[in-house]
């Protein structure tokens, strides 16, 4: 099965040699068009998730569907391979079902629109964008039930459908979709915004082809891809060894009491190509933490990391895809079988970046970054206010950026690109909430020469009875430190009643009832530290204590001894550091903290929560028969 492209003009494009200057001009123009897509979306979308937090991703691809500009790489190839319909002028395709498109989107909340761009009867490019909808129906508000056991519980599932067919708007199908969701106004506006963004970019592409000529435009896209292929080929040859390196990290639990789930990746170079083999990754979960990882998306993640770590000047596109061989075992957490639930995939998605960092830096520790790409902590709060109006909040939280070769990890920032917080005054104005505290947590960043960023404490006072759900990770397996840096603190959630009693609540929970005046303390992870904390300037420790980013107790991890008036006791510090250094020995490249079994033993005591239990994979295998 493969899509049929219908063109009224079947003349093939002619490959024309492009001078380097025209090429650079077309590349710049495409980049500008992509910036316009972001701007259009942000200005017209309505859900706080998209308009304030920026949870949406644009791309412009060539006529074969390969990404020329964008972020996550192109899913158009796999989509066309699996789509049985036609692609015609005036069509606009929408979809959300990961299983229909090989994981092009990885959960049903991401609505994707795809606009084939035609010029003079010929398909000349694609523009596309997907964005996270606040609600798509299903068993819980926000549509990401952590305890779902199949995708059918996760809301409306949209296979590729044409919402415009040869220019005609298919109102019925859009009405059918909007009827399934709790927040149709937001979804309608956000869908409109996605479409408007793709149209803007399509207009730019046609203008560019007009300006330079169709053949030149298409040839330029080819050449941009080829240029990237050459650059990445060189980078791979220089930076990736033929010796195998492996790295493992974990998802703490699945929200059903089981965990942690291991993700393992082995990397090596073979015949000029890189192999990324996920053999050894745990089997899929019965809950929704599965991450249907599209191979192209993994190629793009890898490419972006290579570029950012080794040479940030290169612009990335899909050109180097064939240089990367991604192998993911069927039935694993990263390639679950239909109809496994997928909505809680954000944790495994985020963990990919820690794994990439760990893999790429192993042979070149000076380029290594620490861990802390926790995922995106989510909070959902919904109910009916005193006037009987339904409210529904979906908020993405942030945390500590890991320590980096460049310096400290910023405190309480976002690892995902272009995300920002929703202003608290906005939250208080439009939701029944008071945000009592909004600060970073002292000592939560892992100690290091470059300190990991602190996690965030956000205290939500609920003004109405309602239900909340929390999705977070890195509460059990800490974010690791590197080159002597220590792990960051783990995430925690505390519910405080008006009488002051506090209860620790889980980090992956659904449908927790809250009452007016309850306060939820939502605490996120701290980033891992980078480099030996015993080398950090003691004056900086004193300064950060004054800033409230570190406590006097937190100074211990740096071997800094303070005088009674809070200054550095230089002599005592030197002695203390020498003693700590001797006791510890040489620094290790990775500091993962205690091993999994020790974490389990100490879990209740350290986190206030029962330890996740080990899944018995044999049972799963039997059940799957």
């Amino acid at each position: 099965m493969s899509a049929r492209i219908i063109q009224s003009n079947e003349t093939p494009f002619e490959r024309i040699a492009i001078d380097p200057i025209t090429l650079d001009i077309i590349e710049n123009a495409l980049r500008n068009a992509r910036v316009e897509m972001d701007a259009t979306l942000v200005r017209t979308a309505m859900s706080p998730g998209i308009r304030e937090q920026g949870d949406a991703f644009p791309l412009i691809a060539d006529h074969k569907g390969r990404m020329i500009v964008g972020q996550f790489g192109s899913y158009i190839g796999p989509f066309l391979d699996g789509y049985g319909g036609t692609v015609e002028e005036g069509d606009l395709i929408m979809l959300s079902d990961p299983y229909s498109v090989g994981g092009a989107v990885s959960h049903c909340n991401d609505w994707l629109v795809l606009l084939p761009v035609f010029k003079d009867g010929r398909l000349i490019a694609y523009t596309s964008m997907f964005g996270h909808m606040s609600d798509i129906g299903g068993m819980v508000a926000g549509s990401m039930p952590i305890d779902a056991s199949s995708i059918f519980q996760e809301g409306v599932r949209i296979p590729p459908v044409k919402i415009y067919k040869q220019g005609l708007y298919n109102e019925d199908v859009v009405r059918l979709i909007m009827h399934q969701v709790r927040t149709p106004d937001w979804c309608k506006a956000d869908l409109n915004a996605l479409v408007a963004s793709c149209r803007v970019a399509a207009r730019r592409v046609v203008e560019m082809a007009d300006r330079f000529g169709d053949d030149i435009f298409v040839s330029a896209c080819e050449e941009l891809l080829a240029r990237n292929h050459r650059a990445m080929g060189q980078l791979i040859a220089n930076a990736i060894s033929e010796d195998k390196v492996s790295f493992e990290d974990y998802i703490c639990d699945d929200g059903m009491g089981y965990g942690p789930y291991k993700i393992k990746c082995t990397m090596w170079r073979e015949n000029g190509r890189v192999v990324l083999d996920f053999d050894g990754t745990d089997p899929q979960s019965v809950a929704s933490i599965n991450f249907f990882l599209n191979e192209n998306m993994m190629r793009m993640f890898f490419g972006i990391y290579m570029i950012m770590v080794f040479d940030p000047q290169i612009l990335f596109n899909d050109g180097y895809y064939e240089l990367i061989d991604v192998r993911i075992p069927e039935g694993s957490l990263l390639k679950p079988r239909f109809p496994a639930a997928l909505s809680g995939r954000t944790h495994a998605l985020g963990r990919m970046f820690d794994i990439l960092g760990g893999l790429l830096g192993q042979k070149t520790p000076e380029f290594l970054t620490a861990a802390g790409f926790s995922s995106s902590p989510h909070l959902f709060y919904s109910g009916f206010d005193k006037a009987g109006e339904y409210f529904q909040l979906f908020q993405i939280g942030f945390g500590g950026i890991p320590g980096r070769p460049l310096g400290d990890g910023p405190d309480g920032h976002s690892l995902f690109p272009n995300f920002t917080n929703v202003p608290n005054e906005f939250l208080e104005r439009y939701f029944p909430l008071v945000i009592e505290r909004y600060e970073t947590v002292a000592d939560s960043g892992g100690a290091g020469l470059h300190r990991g960023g602190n996690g965030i404490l956000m205290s939500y006072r609920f003004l109405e009875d309602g239900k909340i759900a929390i999705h977070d990770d890195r509460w059990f397996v800490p974010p690791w430190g590197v080159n002597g840096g220590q792990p960051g603190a783990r995430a925690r959630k505390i519910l405080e009643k008006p009488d002051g009693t506090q209860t620790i609540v889980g980090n992956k929970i659904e449908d927790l009832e809250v009452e007016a005046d309850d306060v939820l303390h939502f605490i996120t992870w701290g980033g891992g530290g980078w480099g030996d904390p015993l080398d950090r300037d003691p004056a900086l420790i004193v300064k950060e204590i004054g800033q409230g980013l570190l406590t006097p107790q937190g100074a211990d991890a740096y071997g800094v001894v303070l005088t009674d008036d809070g200054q550095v006791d230089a002599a005592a510090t030197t002695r203390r550091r020498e003693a700590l250094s001797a006791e510890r020995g040489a620094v290790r490249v990775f500091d993962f903290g205690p091993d999994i079994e020790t974490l389990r033993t100490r879990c209740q005591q350290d986190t206030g929560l029962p330890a996740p239990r080990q899944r018995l994979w044999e049972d799963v295998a039997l059940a799957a028969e």
Partner: protein
Amino acid sequence: MAYRLGVDVGGTFTDLLLFEESSGSFWRHKTPSTPHDSSEGILNGLTAICAKAEITPADIEIFLHGTTVATNAVLEGKGARVGLIVTEGYRQIMQIARSFVPGGLAGWIVWPKPQPLAALEDTFEIRGRMNARGEELRPLNEANIRAQLEALKARGVEALTVSLMNAYLNGAHEARVGELAAEILPGIPVSLSHVVLPEMQEYERTLTTVANAAVRPVVGRYVRSLREKLRGAGMAGKLSLLRSDGGLMTSEKSEEHPVSLLMSGPAGGVTGAIWVGKNAGIRNILTLDVGGTSTDVALIENLDARRVRTTEVGHLAVRASALDVKTVGAGGGSIAYVPELTGALRVGPQSAGAVPGPVAYGKGGTLPTVTDANVVLGYLPEALLGGTFKLDRAGATQAVQTIADALKIDLYAAARGIIDIVNENMFGALRMISVQQGYDARDFALMGFGGAGPLHVNAVARLMGSWPAVSPVSPGVLCALGDATTRMRTETARSFSTLASQTDGAAVGAVLSEMEAQIRAELEAEGVSPDDIVIEFEVDVRYSGQAFEVPMTVTLADLAERGIAALTGRFDEEHRRLFTFNMDSEHEIVNLRAVALGQALDLPAAQLPVGDGDPIAAKLRDHELYMDGRMQPAVIYDRAKLRANDRIAGPAIVIEMDSTTLIEADCVATVDAVGNILITLAPSADA
């Protein structure tokens, strides 16, 4: 006779433009800037230009000034040390900075996080809380406030900012803290967020208030010193400063609200372009202000520049009205290079700056720049600045040759490539403010100014389809001209956030009238006669739930007669124009704004003698330049000798003291009645 003097202080040069108001005659002067104390350079210029015009400083009635002193204080971190008082639980608001990390996926690995403008150790929390309806949720505790202010006092801050949660709805708590601060920290200036910016969004409001506090002492010192020096030189006239939004304010007002000066520099060029446009009969203009390291672009529609609510300086986005000027790192000093890995030709954003500068300037620069490419191609003839220094053509050629070698193309193709890329970057910035905002660039003329604008304006106009390409009179000092020709302005804004269905024209009109009274009083206090004051109103509208609003101009009469529905109807039209669709959601009236303007001075431009169309009298010499893939014969003209109606066929170059205008091969330039050069496609090329 009445004279007004416009002065623009740039990084390299201080430009002065002296106007005689009745005849429109003017004198211009350029003198090196004196960065250690800009007022020195200004005084040098003042003396020189008065000598040229044969007047004394006492003859100058108004001194109008665009300055980057506030901008530089922010960019160079030389602002005052600001203490910050926030609501309990919010001490790290500036540290968290909305959690934003720029640079795309994995961009965090290489992002250097800037330090907060108010240091965390100088930030203190107080108890007490307002809710989102402006009601007191918890009262203040005076003992607690006093203790925190005492602690802050011990830290030795030079200015204080108070920014509390929801203060945009109720400033009572901030006001009380301000009173106690005056008592405990006497002599320390206090800024309250609900006064500086009564708008929702705690981070932006705090940042703006802190920025205001940080630049206040620096701007105050500068303005007072300048005032004294001018008085000392015998200038008794008024001193006004150009605001980021293109209006003027008295120097006294600017000391209180310096955050309005952050884009004062670039605003001068835009207001200058408006004056030129008025005289040239061109009402829709895109501006292209090309300097050494960067290019500023702006859009003028119907002789009014687009404004935005956010001023961006360095990494800071401050909420203060500014002309919608976009800056791109592409200028005469931008360095061309070919990265080894990709073999692509890149130009900028790295710049050779003023020092070492382009190779052709012979000040030690060795890397090829845009200016060097212009020299190689013959677009910049050997002499700049009226012949006071010669360009090093051989050096420029050698530098550009390195690019040609890396790309394996010939010298001229490489030089032209550098120009094409830098033009493309300018084009990208122009698109952002035009096409991207729903404007058709073909409805606009493109005006190039600043040192290098007239060199690029023809080529960029071709990319945009924006004709004519305009090289205005005295393009090198257009900012100073803008300073000299704009008018007084003040504005105020309020949050309204009400659904259109839950209010009416009368209710909105009542608030606007109240705001009018306030700003009228302000301008009158600044010495503007009540009869000369013009009031304009703007209402920000959006579909309820959107994050961005569209500012709509309204009149009180229209609101009274036709109500809110007429306004929301116009908003729907505008939304469709901008974003291609409308929604059936409710409309929300978000913010109200009132602007008070002083009288627009109707300064005439001096008329040129009328010629017969033949520019031969202005011809300096024959020349040769590279265009359309070959060397071509061209002519160099002296701008000072051009007459009205002269027609110049391209390729040609027009030179003057501080700027060079390039007319491309298939274009033709006409000199208008006041000396602007208007370039269009030659009739044959048009077809």
